[in-house]
């Protein structure tokens, strides 16, 4: 009878061999699965990705065209509606143009200032036009403006009346600041004159809206 220890020593190499075989099999299987995944990734990146991107881009284009079509259809309807409405008020175009002209119309601007004061018997002494576009602050989108400094002598009440008349003018005028000063001659102390006249000085911005074609 052989001792159990010698039996074990005989079987051990066999078990070792079997275990190694099993490990090898497992290793090969893992390598195979890894390779499959890597191949899938490679194939997806270089073959499926461009196709999917192209399909998505085409779908996006189709969707965007659908949106554009619907929006433009709606816009065209609104344009037709606006066309009808504007043809009805075309005779009032001069009102809009006198309020916000497409050209500076300096003479018209000065006419508004001079005529307003002349209506109350006041003669405008000085009109100074400032056409520097950098000096003016922009109040409305796409509009341009020029400023006019006006100076005249009148009674305080007439001065106020002229300013309020100007604010009620059809042309868009923005009066930035107004100063009332007593008349001051060379040999006289600054006191209100006998006539009660004061020197009125104010700066006003006149707006105009150049046509879209002009800007291009």
């Amino acid at each position: 009878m052989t001792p159990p220890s010698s039996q074990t020593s005989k079987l051990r190499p066999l078990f070792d061999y079997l275990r190694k075989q099993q490990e090898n099999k497992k290793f090969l299987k893992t390598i195979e699965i890894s390779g499959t995944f890597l191949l899938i990734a490679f194939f997806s990146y270089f073959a499926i990705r461009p196709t999917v991107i192209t399909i998505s881009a085409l779908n996006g284009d189709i969707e965007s065209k659908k949106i554009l079509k619907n929006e433009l259809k709606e816009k065209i309807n609104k344009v037709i509606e606006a066309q009808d409405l504007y043809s009805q008020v075309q005779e009032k175009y001069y009102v809009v143009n006198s309020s916000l002209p497409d050209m500076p119309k300096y003479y018209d601007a000065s006419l508004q200032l001079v005529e307003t004061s002349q209506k109350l018997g006041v003669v405008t002494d000085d009109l100074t036009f400032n056409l520097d576009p950098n000096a003016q602050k922009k109040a409305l989108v796409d509009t341009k403006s020029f400023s006019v400094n006006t100076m005249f002598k009148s009674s305080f009440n007439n001065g106020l009346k002229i300013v309020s008349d100007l604010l009620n003018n059809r042309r868009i005028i923005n009066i930035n600041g107004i100063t009332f000063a007593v008349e001051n001659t060379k040999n006289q102390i600054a006191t209100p004159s006998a006539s009660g006249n004061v020197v009125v000085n104010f700066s006003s911005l006149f707006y105009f809206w150049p046509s879209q074609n002009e800007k291009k």
Partner: protein
Amino acid sequence: MKKNKYSNYLLIISIFTCITVFFIIIQSSYIKLMKPITDVKQSVIIRPIDPSLDLETLSEIEKRNYYDNPTQ
């Protein structure tokens, strides 16, 4: 034993590579799908217009003072 350890790492890396590639494909296709739609929505051409005309303001403007240029 060492061989098996490395093969396991390789398996994990390949699985994550596959998942990453999958997400890259989804992300780039989503960008391609949405780009033309957002471009159209932001374009000036579909900016809404209001066809209504404020006639009340127009008549109010007409009532205001205006001195016409006699040369015109």
